[in-house]
């Protein structure tokens, strides 16, 4: 399967990705992000999403975890939200029950 990549997020952050060959879909609020992802996920196997939209859409994004594709990846957008760390932690606790990364 061949595919392109897409990025969903606020216009300022994602603009520069266009230059790298990623299709950009600017959104302004949570609701718009949800609609856009739903549409975009059909055509693009890989979708990047800026973290500030990933946090409120957590439950919605879970439904994409059933299959290998599409991959929705929350990426940090400059502002540190700690989302990535929180995600790793929850996955680790669910599967192992112990903290092996942030233990110290």
């Amino acid at each position, binding site marked *: 399967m061949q595919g392109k990549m897409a990025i969903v997020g606020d216009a300022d952050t994602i603009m520069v990705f266009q*230059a790298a060959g990623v299709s950009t879909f600017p959104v302004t609020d949570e609701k718009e992000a949800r609609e856009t992802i739903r549409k975009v996920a059909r055509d693009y196997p890989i979708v990047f999403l800026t973290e500030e939209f990933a946090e409120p859409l957590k439950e919605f994004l879970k439904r994409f975890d059933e299959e290998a594709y599409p991959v929705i990846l929350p990426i940090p957008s400059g502002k540190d939200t700690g989302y990535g760390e929180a995600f790793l932690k929850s996955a680790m606790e669910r599967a192992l029950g112990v903290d092996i990364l942030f233990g110290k």
Partner: protein
Amino acid sequence: MELKKLKARLTTAVRGHKLLKDKADEMVRRFTVLLRQDKALRDEVEAGLSDTMKSVAVAGSLSPTYTQETAFSMPTVSVEAVCETESIMGVDVPHVTLSEGERSARLPYAFSEITSEADDSVRKVSALLPTLIRLAEVEKAVRLLADEIERNKRRVNALEYVMIPQLEETIKYIRDKLDENERAAVVRLMKVKGNSAF
């Protein structure tokens, strides 16, 4: 008859339990490896992206927004992601390879209209893209594997604490009943013999 059937089921259950347990061990091992990878990649991406965002901000402050927008809207490369799946312990995880179209070394705009800071940020983003893809791949694998481990754990527990004890109990009950019947038959025989002796 029923006893035989149940015994067969018990051996299957025990064997299945052992296999699932082995599977769980191996999955956990793979999972820890992936998790460490994910962490490293995420740190890398976070550092790279904040760096990029900084240079974008600088570039943005040096030229008006509309020139920047037009400059960035022409992609330098056409990046195609080849998406396949590979299997980790029976879980399908994405495997992505980037196939870049012909890469023009030149930036997609005239040098007169944009600053070198913008060139820099474009270059940085392009360099970051493979890492981003890698992260997407690993992170999805982590998610899928975590789900699978959880499901597997539930299966192992169901076998260990419900299926196997239940089967054992039924087998014991039937065996007791059969023994009881046998004893009853012996006693009855003895009684009959004793009666006829009179």
